[in-house]
């Protein structure tokens, strides 16, 4: 419990900054939407844009005019940002003890590495859930004055379940990368690299149909908002893949980090 508290405290500042930044971003997006929605010129403009370009930005299936459509479009960026925060958190929460050379203090205390990782994991979960809820609330609050379709709130809730799953996927990848890697600088770079490559793959898939088979390795393709909007559910196959990744990442973290020599 003392580790959970300590970790939350040490990550508090960065979590507050992320929360404020995301809330601001959502608000700005909604102000932008406000200027789109009443304006037929925007839809004409979008129709004239090359399809590939829209696809690269994940905007191919939406009319920007509807609120759901707009939120569907920004969902990809929420996945990206919250995924980035999660993978950085996952990788740093493990590797920072070696980076700051506090490993020689923490790991000689009478507590097992398993318990230390568990404490860090719990604090990371609290961190992710908080940021998720802050984002959800900012979407709900900034759309409060708009006309909404009847399924709006179920759509939003499903979307934020997806955001949470994506956060968990990247958190566990970040944890795993830094628990295998002795060099903390490398862990951060690899983590961000994985995030950027999977994001790039998802953009490529949108543009090039023949790359569709790659969708299983890019979490950004797992919970496409157009599917959520039309089916009002998440695709089970991707839920299963996600759970497998999360279990493997967290399980691997426990397995490898406990046996690894610490870098001092």
């Amino acid at each position: 419990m003392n580790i959970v508290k300590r970790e939350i405290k040490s990550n508090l500042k960065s979590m507050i900054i992320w929360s404020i930044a995301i809330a601001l971003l959502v608000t700005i997006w909604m102000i932008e939407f406000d200027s789109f929605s009443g304006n037929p010129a925007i839809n004409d403009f979008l129709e004239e844009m090359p399809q590939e370009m829209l696809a690269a930005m994940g905007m191919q299936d939406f009319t920007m005019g509807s609120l759901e459509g707009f939120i569907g479009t920004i969902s990809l960026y929420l996945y990206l940002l919250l995924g980035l925060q999660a993978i950085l958190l996952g990788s740093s929460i493990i590797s920072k003890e070696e980076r700051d050379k506090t490993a020689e203090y923490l790991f000689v205390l009478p507590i097992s590495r398993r318990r230390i990782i568990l404490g860090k994991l719990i604090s990371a979960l609290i961190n992710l859930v908080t940021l998720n809820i802050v984002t959800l609330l900012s979407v709900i609050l900034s759309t409060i004055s708009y006309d909404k379709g009847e399924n709006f709130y179920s759509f939003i809730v499903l979307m934020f379940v997806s955001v949470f799953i994506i956060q968990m996927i990247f958190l566990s990848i970040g944890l795993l990368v830094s628990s295998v890697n002795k060099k903390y600088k490398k862990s951060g770079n690899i983590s961000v690299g994985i995030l950027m490559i999977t994001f790039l793959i998802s953009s490529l898939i949108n543009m090039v149909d023949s790359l569709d088979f790659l969708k299983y390795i890019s979490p950004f393709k797992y919970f496409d908002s157009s599917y959520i909007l039309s089916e009002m559910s998440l695709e089970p196959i991707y839920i299963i893949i996600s759970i497998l990744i999360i279990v493997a990442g967290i399980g691997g973290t426990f397995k490898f980090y406990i046996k690894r020599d610490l870098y001092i």
Partner: protein
Amino acid sequence: MNIIEIKNLTKLYGNSIGIENVNLEVKEGEIFGFIGPNGAGKSTTIRLLMSLIHPTSGEAKLFGKDAIEYGPEVRKDIGYLPSEIFYYDKMKVKDLLNYSASFYDKDCSKKIKELSDIMELDLNRRIEDLSYGNKKKVGIVQGLLHEPKLIILDEPTGGLDPLMQQKFFNIIRDENKKGATIFFSSHILSEVQELCNRVAIIKDGSIIEVQDIKTLRENNYKKISILGNNLNKDAFNLNGITKLVQDKDELKFFYKGDINAMIKTISSIEMRDINIEEPTLEEVFMHYYE
């Protein structure tokens, strides 16, 4: 009872040797010195004991229990002072000490007060504002606040001024009198001589010898250099003189033996200056190093 028992412990880093086939036994109540030059494998051995790293082969037992398997349990009774102290920079000293204390199932507040009074430690400062020596003091308080039965010190005196060093040695002696076993690693011979009962000498990853400190004292070499105009090398034909070198008007040698005989010899010659000093660790153990 052996508090520390190390059997054939080996740690390889890739192809390079950290330590090789180290065997050691430290008995309850001892102050055991662990001495060797930098890079000899002292810290590697200690980190294996603290299960920060894992052995390539062999085993280490603390209080009769395997250091890795029962790590968290045995570490309840160990106080560890690493050679370099790093804590969470943003924390205040007292928060850090209380955080450390929260991992032990006992009230450590009295001991924290007592130790920080002796070490003149300001509990309200932030870790990041502390000097190297002050961080060391925090390390000493933090390592001892739970009244450990085994105290492991890795080059503990760096950064402490002589006064603090004496206070620290007194604390260590007190803890030892109360029953704590001390494992003291250092590359400075004089501090090991001052404190320890027995010493192990480590070089290039292997233990060369385990000796009583008394024996080591008897092996007490002096490093003597004499300046003079008409020095005669042949006047120094006493038993116990080694490495005698004459360089123009300077004579240098090591001496191990009856100091009175040496003084007589020296007093019989004409000289400008004389210098008698403690040899460095490397020089004392030169017969191991040759």
